[in-house]
Each structure stands twice: as structure tokens, then as C-alpha cells.
């Protein structure tokens, strides 16, 4: 048997635990193969536990383990780093718990926080940098650590409560008006915030088109001339204070 075939048989054994795949390694290999099989699965379960500690608390140990095993069986790891293994765990949770949007959003929060933690460094822009900006041609650049998604539940409140030992998390609830969840990193700490629908749409708009005048047009369309321009100013100030904006460049 050549090396490629040998490694493919080993892979099949790890993925399936099928004795037919183990047989090619000989009778004496059974004990050792079991160690590798156990290491493979244990490591991936542990990896998901590290990536999703809040989901583990929210679901409980047994349900989380069951979800992790389902994920391992349907999503074999492909990347060179374990850090990316849990990326699709929200999909597995959505399949297992299709009627729990709070759980889906909680999973998104955990993954976005870990991605933001190691995103590219980009120092925040200070307010002093605003003096010479020509706003008619300005492009606003958001921090590369920013992650956004629609918020339909109180998952952010659940996440916050579960960060404290022995704290009782609120029950999952649908929001009266959907908004947005934003995750980003400020210096070396990942942050989570729920924002209203206007701010969420404004950030989405800015991700697609960095021009400040386009942002203003978007807000004016939504809120009217006076309120739209006023909100643009408020959002700009908030985003600068939150370290969400890293540079402003001319078009």
C-alpha cells in the first residue's frame, strides 16, 4: 500500500470508526487506533467548548456535547488551525434547534467575538483628525474587526448575563423591533453591542460604500432632512468614541 492510500485509510478510520478501515492496519493496531480516534474526537469537542463557552452554559453539558458530536460528524475539520473549526457551528445549532433564534444569535455572538479578538490591528481615529476633513468627499473606514448581523432576540442580554458566575440568564425573547448586533475590538478587548435598526443599516451602508455623503443620503431618506443629518453627526461621534472608525480618506 502506498503512503497516500495508507493516509486515506487512516482518515476514513478517524471519520467513521469503521472496522473495515481499521483492518488494513493489522490486528495489533486496534488499541493504538482507538487512541487516535479518541484524541481526534475529544480534541474537537474540547475545541468547540472553548469557542462556545456561553452556548455550553446555556444548553447544558449533555445537550452541548450532543450538538458538538453532531457537528463533528457533519463538519470534518479542513483548516490548518483549530481556531477556525467552530465557524459553522451556528449552522449545526440551527439544524438541531430550528425554532431558537436566540440560540443562533448567541452562537453568532461567540464566534464574532473570537474573530474580532485576533482581527487585524487598526488604531482608532481620534477626534483631532477631523479638523481638515472635506466631508463632501470623505470616505469613512471601519475597523477590520467589525462584525454585524441582524438582531431579532435578546441574545446579547443572555450573553451578558452568562458571563457572570451563578448569574441567572433571562429567558429568550423576540425583540419588538429588530435591530442589529455589532462586535468589534477596542485595543485588545472584543466588544458586543446591540444597536437600533437605523444605526445597523447605517453601518451596513458604510461597509458597502465608505462615502460619508452616501451615508448622509441614506439617513436622510430614512429619517428626513433635518433628523437624518443630525443622526449622521451623532453616529459619527459615537463611532469615533467607540473606536469603530480607523481612517478617513478623501474619495
Amino acid at each position, binding site marked *: 500500500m502506498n503512503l497516500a492510500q495508507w493516509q486515506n485509510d487512516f482518515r476514513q478510520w478517524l471519520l467513521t470508526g469503521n472496522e473495515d478501515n481499521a483492518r488494513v492496519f493489522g490486528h495489533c493496531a486496534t488499541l493504538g487506533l482507538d*487512541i487516535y480516534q479518541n484524541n481526534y474526537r475529544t480534541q474537537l469537542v474540547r475545541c468547540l467548548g472553548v469557542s462556545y463557552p456561553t452556548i455550553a452554559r446555556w444548553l447544558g453539558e449533555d445537550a452541548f456535547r450532543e450538538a458538538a458530536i453532531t457537528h463533528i460528524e457533519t463538519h470534518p475539520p479542513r483548516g490548518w488551525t483549530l481556531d477556525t473549526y467552530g465557524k459553522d457551528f451556528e449552522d449545526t445549532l440551527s439544524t438541531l434547534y430550528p425554532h431558537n433564534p436566540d440560540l443562533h444569535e448567541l452562537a453568532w455572538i461567540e464566534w464574532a467575538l473570537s474573530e474580532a479578538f*485576533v482581527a487585524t490591528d487598526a488604531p482608532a481615529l481620534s477626534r483631532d483628525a477631523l479638523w481638515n476633513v472635506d466631508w463632501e468627499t470623505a470616505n469613512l473606514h471601519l475597523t477590520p474587526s467589525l462584525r454585524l448581523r441582524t438582531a431579532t432576540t435578546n441574545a446579547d442580554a443572555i450573553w451578558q448575563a452568562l458571563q457572570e458566575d451563578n448569574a441567572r440568564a433571562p429567558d429568550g425573547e423576540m425583540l419588538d423591533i429588530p435591530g442589529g448586533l455589532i462586535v468589534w475590538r477596542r485595543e485588545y478587548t472584543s466588544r458586543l453591542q446591540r444597536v437600533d435598526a437605523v444605526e445597523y443599516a447605517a453601518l451596513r451602508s458604510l461597509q458597502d460604500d465608505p462615502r460619508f455623503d452616501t451615508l448622509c443620503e441614506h439617513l436622510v431618506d430614512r429619517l428626513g432632512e433635518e433628523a437624518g443629518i443630525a443622526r449622521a453627526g451623532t453616529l459619527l461621534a459615537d463611532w469615533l468614541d467607540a473606536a469603530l472608525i480607523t481612517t478617513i480618506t478623501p474619495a
Partner: protein
Amino acid sequence: MTTPPTTFSGYGLGLRREHYRDFLDTDVPVDFVEVISENFMVDGGQPLHILRQVRERHPVILHGVSMSIGSADGLDRDYLLRLRALADAIDPLYVSDHLSWSRVAGFSSHDLLPVPYTEEALDMVCHNIDMAQGILDRAMLFENPSSYVAFDGATLHEWEFLAEMSKRTGCGLLLDVNNVYVSASNHGFDAHAFLRGIPAERVRQIHLAGHTQGPGILIDTHDQPVCDDVWALYATAVDLLGPVATMIERDDDIPPLADLLDELAIARGIGQRKQEAA
């Protein structure tokens, strides 16, 4: 052929998250630290910030677990380029990985799977090492792994494979004494024959770690102190190799830093006694 990296003797520890504050706030008495390369092959954020600060105080060794040098599919170029970028930024003492494979056909096991010790595998491993050393523009070290399965068709002893691999590619060797002990026990070979069989002049670093007794097999768990038998094997290794950079590798059930420094003092004591006696 690449030239093996220069020799460095001293005593170090693996840098683990639990001890970041110790290394940032105090003067930890080590000659070097070793980090898991993949933990720092990221775009930015706190891990790299911490590593840069630690690097200002100590020489750093980059020790990888995902190169998959024994993969019949070849190497992941993106992985190598990221490792190169990290090495360029950190200027490490050594860059190392394992004589093992983890990736095939788009699947990554994230475990150090054994390479069958055959001529075909030797050719493949040497080809992959040449590529890795070419992209990294430096000689690497490769570590003997613990293994739980031996290949029926193997034609070489592990130490013969390592010696030939090092001779052909110019790579250095990272001798994990605990892994020698574990594999010798699991496969019934003589650990001393292993130590005598590897080329002493190619060994640049030694790992010491703990293992666990499994059901009829030893498992390399890195969650225990170094056991007496492994200390005895280390003493033999020092006799054969002379002064080589030595470290305690602990990855699970991580104790306070002081406990690991106590263990490192045992290694230092063995090394110094051997040197004085020489």
C-alpha cells in the same frame, strides 16, 4: 542542502496562557521560551502583542503542530507563508514541527499522526522539508512524535528515518525524550538504541514532558510531571548529546509557574552535573 541551525544551550519553558502575566510582570528565570506557532499565526490582537513583549525579554522558539510534514498531499503553501511572516516578525531561535502528518485530501485531523517508516515516506518527508525550509529560508527542527500504531511494512527504525531525513535535508532534530520513552514502551524497542541511533550533532533541542498510562498503552498527554524513568533517559541523552537547549513541555492541567520552574531546575541540575563530570 540547508545547514542545521546554530547550537544554543539553556533551559526553557513552553509559554502558556495561564502564565502570560508571570512572563509580562516578572523576570522569569528561563533562557528561552517556546510557543505554539499556530496560536500566533493570526492577523492581530492581544496574542501577538503579548508575544512581541515576551520576545523583548527572551529568545523564542516557534513550535508548530500543523505543518503535516509527512503528508502525501504535500504542504499547505498558505500555512508556510503565514509561518514565514511570523518568523520574520519574531526572529525566533528555532522553528520546529513534528515528524508526523495531520492533513490529507482536504481533511485535517489536528493530531500528530504517525508516519510509516518506509523509503517512500522518507522521500516524501524530505521533499516536503526541502519545500518548507525553502519558503521559510531557514533550517527547521523536527521532533520525534509519540506513536500508538506501527506500520507492518516499515523498513526503517524511527531513529534511522530521523538520521537519514536530517542528513538529506540539513534539518535539525528536536529530541522529545518522553516521546522516545512512550513509543519504546508501546512498540517494544530499546529507548537507548534510539538515543544512540540519532545523529547527536543534529540535535538542537530537547523536550521533557509527562505521559499517562492508558489501557495497555502509554499516552503522551503532557498533563503530568516528568516521571523518574524519563529523567533517567534524559540523563543518558545529555551524556550522548552534550549541552542542548532543554525545556519542560506542559499542555494540560497546567500548574503554577513555580512548579514548572522546579521541574526545570531538575533538568538544569542533571545537565550541569553531566557537564562538570565531562
